[in-house]
């Protein structure tokens, strides 16, 4: 097997394979609007960054945030407001929106990390709903149910009204965000996150301030989700309540588990599949997105918990009969009296 040869001794991908994947990925990102309707290509890129941002928490730290719509959505609103009110280049607006998302994430993270496991998911979901109600209530700023409309695509006087060109104008932001996520995962900081995921008690015993790490990665993740949400809002020209609703949080979670959490590539794949699927259903006039998304949840969780990317990596590795990389949480029995993911 060629693919097997490309894998290193410990079941890790070799440098060659990784570079090959990277080249393919970048080429794919650059060519996307040529063979996919450009606005859909833009959606894929934005959701891909959003999904990877969540993967930092879900896949690498073992924290299921079920309220990430709060950060995607708050940045969408903040980006829109900055772009409308100041007319600054949208890069600045997106940066501002992402900072708002990160600032919002700080208190939410500080409170949420006080609970672990399944409680963490419930708490983040509840906080996101709080943000939703605030957005709904604060009509002067968010436009309430009408949403925030007429967000301009300003960038140094360039004409970006064509979505094809806007895609290329926004792509650097997305790629930069993905690069940051990759750097986080590959850094000593990222290794500590994995240690926290695998055994929080031991990580604590080794002297790592577990909660502080969790808060830090939560804020980074929220910032990146903010970049994605800001780009999405500028791309669509509006920000709506949908952006902060719990279904949006669920959607980014399904991208992660379908693609394979804790792999970075998996969530990208998941985002691509879900966005294309939604686009297909919408054009085909099939109004059943909840049934489809729900079924994907059920089937993935029951049949292949590693997700698509994780399953492929697992198959490739098991052919080599090497040590199998462990997916988060898969191996922990229920009776284990330690903290769980």
């Amino acid at each position, binding site marked *: 097997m060629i693919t097997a040869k490309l894998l290193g001794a410990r079941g890790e991908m070799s440098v060659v394979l990784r570079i090959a994947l990277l080249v393919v990925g970048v080429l794919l990102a650059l060519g996307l609007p040529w063979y996919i309707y450009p606005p859909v290509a833009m959606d894929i890129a934005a959701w891909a960054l959003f999904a990877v941002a969540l993967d930092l928490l879900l896949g690498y730290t073992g924290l299921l945030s079920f309220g990430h719509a709060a950060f995607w959505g708050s940045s969408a609103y903040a980006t829109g407001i900055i772009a409308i009110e100041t007319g600054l280049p949208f890069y600045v607006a997106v940066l501002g929106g992402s900072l708002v998302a990160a600032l919002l994430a700080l208190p939410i993270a500080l409170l949420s990390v006080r609970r672990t496991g399944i409680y963490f*998911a419930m*708490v983040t979901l509840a906080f996101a*709903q709080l943000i939703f109600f605030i957005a709904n209530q604060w009509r002067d700023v968010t436009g309430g149910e009408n949403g925030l409309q007429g967000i301009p695509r300003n960038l140094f006087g360039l004409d970006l009204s064509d979505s094809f060109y806007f895609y290329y104008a926004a792509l650097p932001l997305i790629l930069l965000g993905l690069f940051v996520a990759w750097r986080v995962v590959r850094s000593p900081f990222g290794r500590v996150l994995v240690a926290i995921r695998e055994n929080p008690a031991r990580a604590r015993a080794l002297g790592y301030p577990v909660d502080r790490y969790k808060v830090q990665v939560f804020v980074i993740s929220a910032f990146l989700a903010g970049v994605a949400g800001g780009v999405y809002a500028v791309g669509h020209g509006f920000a709506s309540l949908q952006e902060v609703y*719990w279904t949006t949080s669920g959607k980014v979670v399904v991208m992660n588990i379908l693609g394979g959490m804790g792999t970075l590539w998996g969530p990208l794949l998941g985002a691509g599949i879900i966005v294309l699927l939604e686009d297909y259903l919408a054009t085909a006039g099939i109004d059943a997105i909840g049934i489809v998304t729900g*079924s994907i949840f*059920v089937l993935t*969780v029951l049949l292949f918990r590693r997700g698509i990317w994780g399953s492929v990596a697992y198959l490739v590795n098991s052919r080599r009969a090497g040590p199998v990389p462990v997916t988060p949480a898969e191996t922990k029995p229920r*009776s284990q009296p330690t903290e769980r993911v």
Partner: protein
Amino acid sequence: MDGLLQQIFNGLVSGSFYALLALGLSVIFGMLGVVNFAHGAFYMLGAFGAFILLDSFGLSWWLALFVVPAVLGIVGMVLERTLVHRLVALDPLYNFLLTFGIALILQDLMRLRYGVQSQPFSRPELLDGSLNLGLFSYPKYQVFVLLFSIVISGLVWLVLTRTRVGMVVRAATERADLSQALGINVGRWVTPVFGFGIALAGLAGVLAAPMRAVNSSMGGDLIIVIFAVVVIGGLGSVFGSVTAGYVVGMLTAVGNFYLPALSQSLVFILMALVLLLRPAGLFGREEGVHA
């Protein structure tokens, strides 16, 4: 003052729904370690069940009060046997995601069948009109809901604390391995308890049909509020969940009286406060036992 009292009463009535739903959620969690995201969807199905029985079969609401929870309880048991059971040994996260998917499917199915418009449902005749409570008069139906939910919560509490079945369930909840070692067949109780929790959600739905809008999205937002309620009360504690249900209902109603702009947000702000001051919940124990 009358206005405030009336608000408190309103709060207790909405607290009745919180309490019934939180009760089912925490019984299931205690026995299986599963947080059932589909709980709101079963509440919605309960309301639709009452609607369908009345609309298509002409069966009265009183009958629905017994039939619908029984049917949904069986559906719940089938769900536990066929799907939930497969994931119980894994991280609770997986069942959370599974039941989230089920909730999405159920909600979308009902939306496709009945649209987004609310279905009309009138109060049962016997409970129509209002009751003079001395200081103010109050709709009979709401009074009934409050009393009924208190009776049900009380009965469940009695069963759990005073009967042999309850003792077994509590033992299995607190120390599943130890109970097993002492010769108690823990596995036997898992499915019925799951079904019972679902039946409680269905019951809350039937109770909601005559006073809340019956539509496919009625459970989706409510379940998130219930999550906040059980975080406040402590999910592991049945007593705590129920009490938190009434307390949260009351506090949000009172808050609503003084700060109407915050009405929907208050429960989440309350949750933030509890996390800050008493992370395990008002009645919860520290995590780790079966969290």
